[in-house]
């Protein structure tokens, strides 16, 4: 018997990023994984930086955090620097669109209810046009195969 990957693309995460102030967190709506039962996901973020990003030696970045629930979506972790970090991405240019993806595998199996938090650490507010932002994910499971497949 073998095992192979099983993918479920283009799931949307609802989160408001346009105009997010520097140093602030945006928190998504709850992601209900209780029926999809994805073990891990790839989260892809498209965003546009604002104007006036500080130059070197500043390190403008955007950080992704997972906010867990262990009680079926009633209580979630706080969206602050204590939250479980998934990844950090560099965003060094002004008024520029970036698309990047993070795999949640490095923080373990996902729970049944979770949220995504995104912290703007670019030094300035994000662009203000909602159309310049998008967050989606690919859910991942495994599929067992009979011997010989």
């Amino acid at each position, binding site marked *: 018997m073998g095992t192979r990957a099983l993918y479920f693309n283009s799931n949307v995460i609802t989160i408001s990023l346009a105009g997010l102030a520097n140093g602030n967190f945006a928190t998504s709506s709850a992601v209900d994984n209780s029926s999809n039962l994805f073990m891990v996901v790839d989260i892809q973020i498209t965003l546009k930086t604002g104007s006036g990003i500080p130059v070197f030696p500043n390190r403008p970045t955007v950080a992704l955090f997972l906010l867990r629930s262990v009680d079926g979506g009633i209580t979630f972790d706080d969206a602050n620097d204590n939250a479980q970090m998934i990844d950090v991405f560099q965003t060094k240019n002004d008024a520029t669109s970036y698309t990047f993806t993070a795999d949640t595998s490095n923080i373990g199996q996902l729970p049944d209810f979770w949220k995504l938090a995104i912290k703007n650490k670019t030094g300035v507010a994000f662009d203000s046009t909602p159309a310049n932002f998008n967050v989606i994910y690919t859910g991942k499971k495994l*599929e067992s*195969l009979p011997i010989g497949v």
Partner: protein
Amino acid sequence: MGTIRSLYTNNQPVTISMDSLPDGSTAISDTINNSTHLFLTADFQLKYTTTVSTTPLGLVELLIIRSADGGATFDDADLNAESIGSFAANEDATTFTVSTDTALSGQLGDYFKVAVKNGSGAIFDANPANFSLKYLGKQYEMV
């Protein structure tokens, strides 16, 4: 041929007393019996509340205390205990809700405890309602 997917068991309680825990001290939970649930890993969610005079670098640590003989003998809850999460406690009189996945410490044993070490720089808040520790058990299933 089948699909391997997540299997969850929510809202598992942990019995532990954290209110008024002095700075530098460790609270240890009652034994968690995993011999029937058989969870592979778990997400632990901890709520704690600081008082005044926390330090700028104050931390609260969550530790796992293992047994390898069916719950008769457990690790000491000291410097050698394995940390499964380290969280900032650098704001006075503030409630924090944080979580961690035990996966990075390997598969859970059949009997274990968890411990919370107060390294905030000050005694914890005195109200038991400002503290909680619970977990989500995780397995896989094939359908």
